[in-house]
């Protein structure tokens, strides 16, 4: 009798667990693959030299080589450095922070490359304690380059000090390798069709402080967006480019924005000699939107971007974003965001963000989450 009760209990447990596994498979999580890079297909990728936005000298060649080694492990075929350099020399390609449509087409035709990996170094410090910030994106080649994958990583040596400081990383090379491994594994996950899904949840601390949203964007529709260069009113050089990349990264992950490659927009601005002094005028916005086939024009301004390069220093970031809709020529989104890295701390530095990279990333995620109307809480 006892045996039969145990037996029925076991059967019940197995059935219950099987049901639980089945049901949990149906649960919608934030990790759904919102964008994929043809799973299963081996990619041939050209890795561009790093775009140094940190404003400091950094071992760019070593970082690039280390990144190549790691993405090769993810099953990506990388175009040789010599071939990449020859191509860049042939096309007098000096700007490595983006790629325009002509160059992307040439990469496809001449080097038989499927995509180009563009990486920007946002922050680099070797000594006390080491810090690194990277933003990387994979852009398809061909006549219409598309952002296939994008991610950013910001680490410091004291992110997880642990008990008695055993978790501290004092060696900059170890920290660099850790950051590059995380970036490469994120790319690997995207290649396997397990990319990060839309951002549906985030701490309320990093939400825009003031924002306006017109009833235009619908969660189930996709909008082509041209993200224009941000104005930089902060003391940090290149802060406009850095914040723009974070915003694009966050928007790409939302899934309902097809954000145009920034290199295409840069080339368009150079071609038409468009100079903005205080924001884009409606006639220029109309021209840019029509020539790039974009429905939305995003622009912005960075007011603060500070990375305090001392242990315990608190980063500070402030920026504004506005979006103009092509047809109505009206602002459909405007927001003001500003935060400090320690605003989400309740006790013992839990929830503290140590770099402007991670802080900007959180703030951009909050902006994109709200803007996309995809159930952001």
């Amino acid at each position: 009798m006892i045996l039969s009760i145990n037996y029925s209990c076991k059967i019940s447990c197995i059935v219950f667990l099987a049901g639980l596994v089945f049901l949990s498979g149906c649960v919608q999580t934030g990790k759904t693959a919102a964008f994929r890079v043809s799973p299963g297909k081996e990619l041939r990728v050209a890795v561009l030299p790093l775009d140094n936005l940190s404003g400091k000298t950094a071992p760019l060649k070593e970082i690039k080589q280390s990144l190549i080694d790691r993405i090769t492990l993810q099953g990506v075929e990388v175009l040789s450095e010599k071939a990449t350099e020859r191509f860049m020399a042939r096309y007098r390609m000096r700007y490595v922070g983006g790629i325009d449509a002509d160059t992307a087409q040439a990469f496809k035709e001449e080097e038989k490359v499927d995509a180009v990996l563009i990486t920007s170094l946002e922050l680099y410090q070797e000594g006390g304690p080491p810090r690194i910030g990277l933003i990387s994106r994979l852009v398809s080649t061909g006549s219409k380059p598309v952002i296939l994958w994008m991610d950013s990583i910001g680490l410091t040596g004291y992110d997880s000090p642990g008990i008695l400081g055993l978790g501290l990383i004092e060696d900059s090379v170890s920290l660099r390798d850790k950051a590059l491994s995380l970036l490469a594994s994120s790319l690997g996950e995207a290649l396997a069709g397990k990319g990060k899904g839309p951002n549906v949840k985030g701490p309320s601390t990093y939400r825009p402080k003031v924002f306006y949203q017109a009833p235009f964007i619908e969660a189930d529709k996709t909008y082509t967006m041209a993200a224009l260069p941000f104005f930089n009113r902060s003391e940090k050089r290149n802060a406009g480019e850095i914040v723009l990349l974070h915003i694009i990264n966050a928007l790409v992950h939302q899934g309902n924005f097809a954000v145009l490659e920034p290199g295409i927009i840069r080339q368009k601005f150079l071609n038409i000699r468009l100079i903005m002094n205080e924001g884009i005028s409606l006639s220029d916005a109309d021209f840019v939107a029509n020539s790039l086939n974009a429905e939305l024009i995003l622009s912005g301004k960075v007011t603060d971007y500070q990375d305090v390069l001392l242990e315990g220093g608190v980063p500070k970031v402030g920026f504004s974003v506005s979006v103009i809709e092509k047809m109505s020529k009206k602002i459909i989104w405007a927001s003001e965001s500003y935060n400090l890295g320690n605003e989400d701390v309740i006790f013992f530095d839990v929830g503290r963000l140590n770099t402007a990279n991670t802080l900007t990333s959180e703030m951009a995620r909050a902006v994109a989450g709200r803007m996309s109307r995809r159930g952001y809480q």
Partner: protein
Amino acid sequence: MRNFIISGVIFLFLTACAGTGTDEKYRDANMDFGAIQNIAVLPLANLTRDQQAGERVRDVFVTALLATGGVYVIPTGEVAKGISLTGMTNPTAPSKEEILKFAALVKADAVITGVLREYGEVRSGSSTANVISLSTQMIETQTGRVVWSASVTKGGVTFKDRLLGGGGDPLNYVTEKAVDDLINKLFM
């Protein structure tokens, strides 16, 4: 009893020194504010030492005005283009003719101009705090008349700051409060 009275007097004296917000406003009683749909916010005259202050405050003001949902604010890029095309000599204090010409170009029902008098840290003894002082006026573009004018001061060294220190509220927060206050004065 005597000590109690002295403490009370000291307390009143100290609170009288505390930073307060001013409340000044003018609202044209004959104006139909409901008819104003599109507003252009011109660059603020910046009387502070911070060169970016005017632009920062104007940005917050524009977004907060849009966020009310009551009016539409013309993008700053379009305003800059309008200023350039009308050849305004001083966009922070335009003449009536300039406003009428500018408004016709950018299709604005009203124009807001303003002066940023103070923005940043103030010190009082050993205490410091952030302060903002701003005044704005709305000009109706059909007639060129001032229909609304208000000023606000927020932040400053308070009794709490003197007693406990801490440097007061962050400047962004003080700016947000001041702008909210100004907008309340426009709608109420």
